[in-house]
């Protein structure tokens, strides 16, 4: 079996299996624990509304915190949006997802994709620079932070390398490029899939659980979620 076939076949299946079972196990580890009953008289019983408010209201820092939190938040949004565009709007990725799920959608114009890649790479480097220079972030950071950064950046950079021809307006993207580079990119993405449930990338799903938990608890008290 060629390495590319391995990356496209058994390695991808194994990575996805590990990712989904890891996510399930991590969530099970949380939800298996008891939720202590709260006998206090609630100020509000609209707890689902509180959960939603908790999820939505923390998407952007409140004006009181904007002076300190806006730069980090904006930079975070840049690479999150950039990654979303790269993953869901680049034709080969749409094709890849279609192969797995049968679902497809039209891609965004190619210039948008290239701008997204550039912004993602720059903002990821800004995030790393911030992490290694800011005293608070330096103190808090551990292997998870740096390895997660590496895993994401590795997937993005190998993806860039796998595109053999630079973008030319009006010219359709060529078929998959050099097999070895595509293979390395696939393996890099599979490493990301495997790492996702174990490290801080898990915030992709934990963010809803955590914000929702506090949103409901604060709604119960009639406090800001």
């Amino acid at each position, binding site marked *: 079996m060629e390495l590319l076939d391995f990356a496209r076949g058994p390695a991808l299946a194994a990575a996805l299996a590990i990712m989904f079972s890891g996510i399930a*196990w*991590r969530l*099970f*580890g*949380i*939800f298996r*624990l*008891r*939720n*202590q*009953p*709260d*006998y*206090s*008289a609630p*100020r509000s019983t609209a707890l689902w509304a509180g959960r939603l408010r*908790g*999820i939505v209201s*923390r998407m952007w*820092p*409140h004006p*009181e*915190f904007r002076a*300190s*939190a806006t730069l*980090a*938040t904006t930079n*975070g949004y840049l690479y999150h949006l950039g990654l979303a565009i790269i993953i869901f709007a680049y034709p080969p990725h749409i094709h890849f997802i279609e192969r797995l799920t049968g679902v497809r959608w039209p891609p965004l114009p190619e210039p948008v994709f290239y701008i997204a890649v550039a912004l993602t790479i720059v903002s990821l480097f800004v995030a790393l620079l911030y992490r290694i220079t*800011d*005293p*608070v*972030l*330096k*103190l*808090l*950071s*551990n292997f*998870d*932070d740096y390895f997660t950064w590496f895993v994401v950046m590795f997937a993005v950079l190998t993806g860039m390398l796998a595109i053999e021809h630079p973008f030319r307006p009006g010219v359709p993207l060529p078929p998959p490029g050099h097999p070895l580079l595509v293979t390395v990119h696939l393996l890099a993405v599979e490493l990301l899939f495997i790492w996702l449930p*174990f490290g*801080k990338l*898990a*915030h992709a799903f*934990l*963010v809803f*659980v*955590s*914000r*929702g*938990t*506090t*949103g409901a*608890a*604060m709604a119960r*008290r*009639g*406090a*800001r979620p």
Partner: protein
Amino acid sequence: MTDINSQHPLELDAPRFSVRKPEARYDKQGEKPDAERVQAALLSFIKDCSRPIATYLESCIHCGQCAQACHFYVASRDPKYTPVWKLEPFKRAYQREAGPFALFFNAFNLKPEVTLAELEAWQELLYDSCTLCGRCTLICPMGIDIAALVGLARHAMYEAGLVPHELWAVAERAEREGSPLGATAKVLKERVEWLADDHAIEIPLDKPRADIMVTLSSIEIMKYPGSIVALARVLNAMGSDWTLRSDGYEATNFGMLSGNSRWQKDSTLRIINAAIACGAQTVILPECGHAYGALRWQGANMYGKPLPFEALHISEFLAASVASGKLRLRKLDKSLTFHDPCQVSRRGGATQAPREVLKALGVDLREMPASGDFNWCCGGGGGVVTIHRADPLRYRAFEIKMRQIDATGAELAVTSCANCRQSFDDGQAHFKWGRTMGSLLETVAANLAGQAQ
């Protein structure tokens, strides 16, 4: 425990009441071997790990934004005061012993074991430099309730016998005498008789039946007795059927602040049982932030079932009385700024109640640059004001508060927490600051409609 009084005598003449033992960087209680202390701490923390707690412990993305919300970090710029860092040994213990991947972390020693030296070093971070104000919770993009986690970590520290001794001593005194500051039932009775005589006002004590049972903070009893008179003025003016009870008057809960759940429960049950004994429909909590959280939000859980009465902070009671027309106030033609007690506003959900009262007083309310739910803490909550070695850091944090209040240019500053007031009094004395923090209740009592000023 008989030597507590001699080892840690109360300093009743100091600007704020407490005992002094500032020399040690960390304190220890009991004679347990080191390994047992660590074991007790970690077992306690893991036992407390419910679903919400595990969610929070799994969710931190190390963004560091919580630092910018913490007055101790902002005042010092020392990264160790980053709120979520205060949980680091406990996060590690959870991941190693109880998290979904504990087997993996433990087998490969990826999360090293927590040591006693770490817990000792963390005592300062969990007690001296955290007021449990919850501002960090509000900024966290993952919504992690860091203040709640610090509360649980304090349980663990208590079990390890690693509580700052001054805080431990007042908590122990509260358990033994019913009050952390020597405001025993006998002292209360004497104070009430003295205040009733001195101010020619009726202050009912130990009525067998009453609609309303009033509780106090020992800080009010010992330092701000004017609050008791103010409370009596307001309730008597409204014609309320009320009483103080010598078997359940102390609303502060130093068991909760020190991390001793058993003492917390004892303090809470004293109030609940007294209220049940006199058939109170309403229990009024005093101008004290943590007392509100202890009964309003944690009381029923200590009791194990819903409370058979309504628990209201005094500011909520005043706001409701104004709204119903039972309480009529004279206009106060002054500019005023209000300091929100964290546990009543941000953590308690009663942010608007004092503002409704102030609106009824007709004051020119000048909000601070960050106010209401976003208010900066006075720096003395969570038991911090009792810990003398924390003073230098607390004073630096207090400077934020002074700047905020000065920026409003308001003639008056009031709050609805006696603990905040004593932190302000202490800061005022330290900085020779020309502002005095007043009481919302006393301001209301001084401006009752139809009564001489």
